[in-house]
């Protein structure tokens, strides 16, 4: 089997079985990146020398018998994670000159697991977007159809793994930015419980919503990488101090008896027919395997998107104030006074969507509007959280579509922000409630992938991974690769 048809887990096993060396594996993927990236624009920075150095170190470890399941396995990091000595752009002109002086905790941990860094992937600017069209570095193309978007904001990571120019990649999910691109590119996109993975070194967009996760080929890959990333970090006050289970061990849990809830509000207007059919078929398949399926109403869930578009911009308007041209990042030329320094550095450094969200956030926090907007939104957030809690009192997992449609054409929705925001209607709820969720491929509609979303209660990563794994043992959607990249 060629390396790029292998999952990360398979590569790991192959390395330990001495079928090939880490250096060979690294060179293989670096070669693929070199050929494919110009057409996909998935990578902002390719770290060839670093990859080979990592690979050599990994080979030494394996030779000494100290290799783990991920040692020597190549990986790409979304360009939102600080990587010491390497450009960390966050997809923005504002940080296009920013060489991070430190590693994010996620980067440290995956490095410690022996993974080999291929490079930093393209993303929507400051993680704000659902199509990877707002990047300073240009849009990312969907490997399934390069005229279409890969989804966002982790579009670069998704495109890289979907085209198998990287076996696995990290992403972040604030409103669906791992799951939605996962669905649009046929990948297993996993977002853990809020607080499961450290946010230290992960450039902040909306602090109470951001979580790091994985764009992977399979549940097994997601389990391995998540297991290495997760866990308490004293540098992050929102990091949860709870032990990390061995996710890979827990994959074989049977599906029989699983209580599945389907969210009535997710199957209404706005859902593309083909997507809806594929998702329903998948849920039916679970029923045939012995799961019970109940329809539930989460009546406040339709308010997820407006809630999100008050809370997230509010938090980001504050998080992005540090970008002022003083200590790092873009600075305008010849500022004539302090006000000019701020206005022009920020005006030049940020793109339109980022500016829109900063201004929305500034407005909803401002005097006279705080109660009506921000406070109100946080209250509705409580209602949504309560809906989920009630649902999980009756079922083990919730299932539904990840995205309302398959991948759409580049440029199709960039004129209308609201239209773009509605790509996240099914994913945002889990972020608001801090719940873990995964998208797994469940079909193709007109040749484009469609994802099934599974949402679980807090800290139910094991059950979600097992559910995804069971699906992937019975189907092969996750093994499909666009012909051009096979």
């Amino acid at each position, binding site marked *: 089997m060629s390396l790029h048809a292998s999952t990360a887990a398979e590569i790991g096993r192959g390395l330990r079985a001495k079928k090939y060396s880490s250096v060979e594996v690294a060179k293989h993927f670096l070669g693929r990146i070199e050929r494919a990236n110009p057409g996909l624009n998935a990578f902002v920075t390719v770290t060839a020398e670093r990859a080979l150095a990592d690979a050599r170190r990994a080979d030494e470890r394996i030779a000494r018998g100290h290799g783990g399941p991920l040692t020597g396995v190549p990986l790409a990091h979304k360009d939102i994670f600080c990587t010491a000595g390497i450009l960390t752009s966050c997809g923005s002109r504002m940080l296009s000159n920013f*060489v991070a002086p430190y590693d994010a905790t996620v980067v440290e941990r995956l490095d410690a697991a022996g993974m080999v860094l291929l490079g930093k992937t393209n993303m929507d600017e400051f993680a704000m977007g659902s199509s990877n069209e707002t990047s300073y570095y240009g849009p990312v193309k969907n490997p399934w159809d390069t005229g279409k978007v890969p989804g966002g904001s982790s579009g670069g990571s998704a495109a890289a793994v979907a085209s198998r120019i990287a076996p696995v990649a990290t992403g972040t999910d604030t409103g669906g930015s791992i799951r939605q691109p996962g669905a649009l590119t046929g990948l297993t996109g996993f977002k853990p419980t809020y607080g499961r993975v450290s946010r230290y070194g992960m450039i902040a967009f909306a602090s109470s919503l951001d979580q790091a996760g994985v764009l992977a080929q399979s549940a097994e890959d997601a389990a391995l990488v998540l297991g290495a990333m997760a866990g308490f970090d004293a540098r992050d006050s929102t990091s949860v101090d709870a032990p990390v289970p061995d996710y890979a061990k827990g994959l074989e849990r049977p599906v029989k008896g699983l209580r599945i809830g389907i969210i009535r509000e997710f199957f209404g207007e706005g859902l593309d027919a083909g997507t809806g059919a594929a998702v329903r078929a998948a849920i039916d398949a679970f029923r045939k395997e012995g799961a019970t399926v109940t329809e539930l109403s989460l009546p406040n869930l339709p308010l997820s*998107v407006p809630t999100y578009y008050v809370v997230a911009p509010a938090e980001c308007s504050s998080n992005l104030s540090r970008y002022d041209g003083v200590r790092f990042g873009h*600075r305008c030329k010849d500022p004539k*006074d302090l006000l000019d320094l701020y206005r022009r550095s920020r005006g030049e450094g940020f793109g339109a969507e980022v500016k*829109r969200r900063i*201004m929305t956030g500034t407005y909803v926090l*401002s005097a006279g509007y705080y109660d009506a907007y921000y406070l109100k939104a946080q209250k509705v957030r409580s209602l949504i959280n309560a809906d989920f809690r009630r649902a999980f009192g009756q079922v083990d997992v919730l299932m539904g579509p990840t995205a309302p449609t398959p991948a759409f054409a580049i440029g199709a929705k960039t004129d209308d922000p609201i239209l773009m925001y509605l790509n996240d209607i099914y994913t945002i709820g889990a972020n608001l409630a801090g719940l873990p969720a995964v998208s797994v491929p469940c079909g193709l509609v007109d040749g484009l992938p469609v994802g099934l979303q599974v949402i679980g209660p807090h800290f139910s990563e094991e059950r979600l991974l097992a559910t995804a794994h069971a699906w992937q043992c019975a189907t092969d959607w996750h093994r499909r690769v666009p012909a051009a990249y096979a």
Partner: protein
Amino acid sequence: MISVKFFPLFPPGALVTLTRRDVENIAHLARLEITEAELPVYVSSLSSILAFVEQLSGAATDDVVPMAHPLEGQVQRLREDAVTESDRRESYQRNAPAVEAGLYLVPKVIE
């Protein structure tokens, strides 16, 4: 399965239209330069975003506690009072656009 309209759950209230002045004020608070040409575009898109989120006003939230964190019941951890950092100024200031004698430079602020 009953087909349910997903949006909008509540019809929007008074349509929110921002004025140029509003957007200029917001842009100033956020220290963002918006050009003359860009201004009407932002007035329009911000107005439609605010109109979109108006839906929230219809939700019944009396006596609902706002949810600031998904980690309900979790409280702030306290750190030991110990110095753990050393001087890394040289490394950190490599990224600085304008530095002199270890100080970050900005146009003079008169008080």
